[in-house]
Structure formats: C-alpha cells, structure tokens
C-alpha cells in the first residue's frame, strides 16, 4: 500500500492506482470528462490536471500513478487557469444550446464552466457544425455538443464489445458516428447516454420529458431480472420519467440493461388495476373497498385453499403471506415464475440474469426450495382435480401473460381471488380482485440471485386504490 497526501489529507491507495481514482475514492473531486472508473484510461480531455510536489508542471491525475510520499494539490491558481483554458477550447465549437439540451442541469461541461470557465468567449470565428441524428433505437446523437471524451466508444468496445460507434476523421474534424446501417443496438445501449458527460448522446425515450432540476431522484431496484440492478428513478409530476443505474460494484457496477431501463412503462400502463372489485355469480362487477374485500377473503380462506404467489412479490409480502398460510393451515402453496430468459455476460463482469424474477431467492428463503420447485404443479393439480375450493393468486409479474394452463384451471374453482397489479385474463374471471402496488409504489426489498437483500423505495403514489401486498395480507 502506498501513502500519499491529497490536499493535505492522508490517503492510502493500492500501488498502480491513479491519483484520480485515489482522490475520488476518498471523497476528493477532480474535474474530469474522459475518465470513467469502469473504462480504460484515455487521458484526452486534459482537464483533470493536478499539481504534484516536485514535478515541473501540472500533470493529468487520471494518467499519473500514486507514489509513496506524493503530495498532490487539486485546486490552485495554476490549475484553475489550465482548466479555464481547456474549457475555453471545448466551448469554441460547442453550440452552447443549454436551453434546449436535455443534459442541462446534470452536464459536467456546464458545471465545470460555472466553476472554472470564463463568462465570455474570445472566439469570433465560425463554429464547426456536425450532424444530429439517431444512432440507435434508444439514443440520439448531437455531435455538435460532443467533447470527444470517447467514453461511449470505449464502453462499446470494452463492455458490450460491439463497437458500433467510432471517432471519424482527424483533428478538430473528429466526430462520433456509426457505420452506415449499423446503429447502436445492443442490450446495454442506454448506458452510453448515462456516461456521456455532456448532451451529445441523449435518450430518445426521455427526450424533452422533463428538465432534470424539476425531477425528484429516488433509489430503487430494477425488478426485471434476478440481477437486481440498483437504479435511480427520476420522478416528475408523479410520473416516473426515467431510470438510470446507480453504482453498485457488487451488483451492477455502473450499468443496467435497456429492458430494465424502459421497464418503468409497465408501472404507468393503461391496464393497471385501480380498484377492489367483486364479481357476482351472474358476472356483474361491483367496486368495493379494501375492508370489504378483506372480509370476503377472510371468509373464503381455509385449509383447502390453494395459494399461488409470484416471485415478483417483495420479501415483506412473502413474509406476510407465510403468516397467513400458517394461520389458515394452507398446505397448497405454489410459486408463479416468469420463464427464464437468456443469461448475458458483458465485459467488466456485468450480467443480465437468466432468471427473470427479481425475488426467486426471497421466495425460497420464506417458503423453502420444495415449494419453489414443486408447489406450482401441486397447486395446478389440486385445482384441476377440484381439491381446492378457493384459489388465491398473488401475481404482480410485469410484462408477462399468465400461462393458459393456469387460466383454464382457475375457471374450475368455486372461488377465485386474484391480487395483481395489472388486469389480465385471470382478473376477468376472478370473483374477487385486489389491486396491488408495483415495486414503484411501495417500500420493500428483493433478494437477488447472489442472495443480497436490496431495499427499494416508494417512488410514486399507488395507482388508484392499489395497496401493497403486505398491507392486504397483514389484515387477513
């Protein structure tokens, strides 16, 4: 281990780490564009200069390795002057169109210019202009705003290894572009929007949806697979506008997949269940209340009830369910799972899990492996053979049509209770429908495939009268 001082703070770092990393890891910020902890060092932006004692001139902190006894200063007059000059160079060809740029408010170029830059321009020539175009299904490129840090190029070369973007031409004609007919279309393409330090790469999905300073940012966990990526949700006027990954080196590093990124749309979809409903034998549907529904449910639960719970339920819901099944002596319990997908691994260790359920591990922890593996079959058999009088399905799986087998079987029970977030073929048949909250509308926790329990926060108000699973179950 190497001991050094940065801004008079003693820091211990591993040999070979850059001064930049050592500083950032210890809460000292050094301005940077091209440096990204998960990507290779490029050293091209030249703004991360720091003064090192006994070195003739300021050095770039991302390319300088720590050394024993090094004394580093990250802010002084000389450095501020260099940063000012570098920013001036960046801005001579930059359109400075912050008013229409989605990055405004979270743009490092804007921030650094505010900190170090000049309030006027000495550049009186004509600016170089470039294309604005779609470069992929999720991403739009404003090449004029680009600072050529090449983070996107390195990301696509090193993490996804697809290399759809390249820097074309030479010198100040340099421009980011795709090969004709080969857009940036890979499962992680949205990440290049997050790592772009300026407004050059913009999410088409979020385009002009909200200015970032109006948004509330809350932490959550992506429910679309068992990886359990940590996410930051941007909420504006009660609607989720975007998801972005939160750094968690143990789970998702700095990334998330595009499918997860767009998954907030399921929360806002039109077919959300917003009211407690009862269906009479004749088929007429009446709105009811939580209390009323709980009373009905209490009366119908008994030892020969079958329960199907999904692995989209959070740990709180599952624990509450366990209490309920124990109380009523329910033996027929099964797990409703979204079928597995394809596991995908990327550079740097990021994985998209084959398991499309966020809480399979959590289900196993509460109900045991036997229920997880065989419960579903048992329940279906019990329903088909008429052994179960009541079937209580707690679903909540997003972006999934329930298996036909279950829908057919469900028609055979005397009393069908469905607790779900979205309406489905099953809720059409149910005698009692309980609207439940999605992960975005409640506090809870999922246990991911590594066995880590990860908490997520309520992002928005529940849709209509929807209630969290555990709130409903606790009253039974």
């Amino acid at each position, binding site marked *: 281990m190497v001991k050094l001082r940065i801004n008079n703070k003693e820091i211990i770092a591993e040999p070979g780490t850059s001064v930049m990393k050592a500083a950032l890891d210890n809460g000292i910020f050094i301005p940077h564009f091209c440096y990204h902890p998960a990507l290779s060092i490029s050293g091209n932006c030249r703004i991360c200069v720091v003064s090192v004692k006994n070195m003739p001139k300021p050095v770039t902190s991302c390319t300088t390795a720590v050394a024993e006894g090094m004394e580093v200063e990250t802010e002084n007059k000389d450095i501020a002057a260099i940063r000012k000059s570098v920013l001036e160079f960046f801005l001579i060809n930059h359109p400075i169109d912050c008013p229409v740029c989605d990055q405004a408010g979270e743009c490092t170029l804007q921030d650094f210019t505010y900190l170090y830059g000049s309030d006027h321009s000495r550049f009186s020539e004509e600016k170089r202009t470039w294309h604005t175009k779609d470069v992929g299904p999720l991403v739009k490129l404003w090449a004029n705003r680009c600072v050529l840090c090449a983070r996107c190029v390195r990301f696509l*070369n090193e993490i996804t290894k*697809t*290399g*759809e*973007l*390249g*820097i*074309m*031409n*030479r010198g100040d004609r340099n421009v980011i*572009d*795709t*090969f*004709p007919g*080969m857009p940036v279309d890979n499962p992680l393409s949205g990440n290049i929007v997050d790592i772009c330090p300026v407004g050059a790469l913009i999410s088409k999905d979020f385009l002009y949806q909200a200015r970032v300073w109006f948004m509330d940012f809350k932490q959550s966990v992506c429910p679309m697979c068992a990886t359990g990526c940590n996410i930051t949700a941007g909420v504006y006027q009660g609607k989720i506008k975007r998801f972005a990954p939160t750094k968690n080196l143990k789970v998702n590093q700095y990334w998330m997949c595009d499918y997860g990124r767009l998954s907030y749309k399921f929360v806002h979809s039109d077919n959300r269940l917003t009211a407690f409903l009862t269906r009479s034998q004749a088929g007429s549907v009446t709105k009811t209340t939580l209390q009323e529904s709980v009373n009905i449910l209490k009366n119908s639960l008994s030892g020969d009830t079958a329960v199907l719970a999904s692995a989209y339920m959070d740990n709180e819901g599952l624990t509450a369910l366990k209490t309920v099944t124990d109380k009523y002596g329910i033996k027929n319990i099964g797990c409703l799972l979204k079928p597995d997908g394809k596991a995908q691994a990327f550079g740097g260790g990021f994985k998209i899990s084959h398991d499309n359920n966020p809480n399979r591990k959590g289900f196993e922890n509460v109900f045991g492996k036997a229920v997880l593996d065989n419960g579903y079959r048992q329940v279906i058999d019990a329903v088909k053979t008429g052994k179960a009088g009541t079937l209580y399905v707690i679903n909540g799986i997003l972006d999934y049509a329930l298996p036909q087998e279950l829908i057919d079987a469900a028609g055979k029970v005397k009393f069908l209770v469905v607790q779900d977030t979205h309406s489905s073929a099953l809720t059409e048949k149910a005698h009692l429908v309980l609207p439940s909250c999605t992960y975005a509308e409640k506090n809870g926790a999922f246990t991911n495939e590594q066995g880590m329990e990860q908490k997520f926060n309520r992002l928005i108000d529940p849709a209509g009268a929807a209630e969290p699973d555990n709130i409903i179950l606790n009253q039974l």
Partner: protein
Amino acid sequence: MPKTFNAKTMEKFQALSQRYPTKDALLLPVLRLAEEEFNGIDDDAMELVAGLVGVPPAKVMSVFTFYTHYRRAGSGKYLLQVCSTLPCALRGSQEIFEHLKKKLGIDSEETTKDGKFTLKKVECLGSCGTSPVVQINEDYYENLTTEKLDEILNKLQ
C-alpha cells in the same frame, strides 16, 4: 453489394496475417489491399475488411477516415495530389495548384467529368528538396513547372 477479395489478394492477406501478432494490426495493410483491388475504398470494402480482420465496421471507418492517404472510392483514374506545405509553397506549389485547377476545371477533392482526374491539395509529401511536387497515383513528379506539368498530363491517358 457485398464485396469479396479475389484469390490473389486473399493469398496476400494470408501471408500478411503471418506477419503480425494480433489480428487488429492487419487493419492498415488490409485496407491497402482493398484499395489496390477496388481502386478506392467505399463502405462495402470497409465491411469486407472489417469481416476479415474481425473488428466492427465502425472501427474500420474510424481508422480509414483518420488516414488521409487511402484512396476514396469514386476518385478519378489519376489522383493528383499537390503538396501545399511551406517548402513546396515557397517554390511555387500554389501556382501549380491554380494551374491544375484552371486546366482541369475542378477544385480540390473534385473529379473531372470524364472521371480521369481527381485533384487534391495535400500536406507535406516529404520531398521538400525537389519541390514543388505532385504525386500522381503512386509516383512522385518533382521539381515541377507548369510546362513540365502540362507535358506529364498530356502523357497520362
């Protein structure tokens, strides 16, 4: 239209791949092969090169556009590259360039209508002692005067 190399070029490609320890390093030499075979490189040629070298096409394009000496597709039969950097400029390369512009009726980076000549103003060709110099396709023509140039152009068919 996807392009392919002919057998002879493929042989050259195989020989080249013995020479370099990584596949990436083949990129520049293989672009030269493509330039030779197709007399200029276009998007299809780049895709072919990308496939052979095993890199994404965007990378090939990125490298190809970095280097200015590769022949772009659509160049004329004769590519006239007029050096315009200081040592040549001191000895009259501007005059040579203006003469060519007038004679061929085209500006830099343009091709005559008959597709015979492409004119290109380029930076230092490394022949400052024998300036002004024009590179026509692969050959250097040095110590040029407008009269000499006319003679040379007349010989080019």
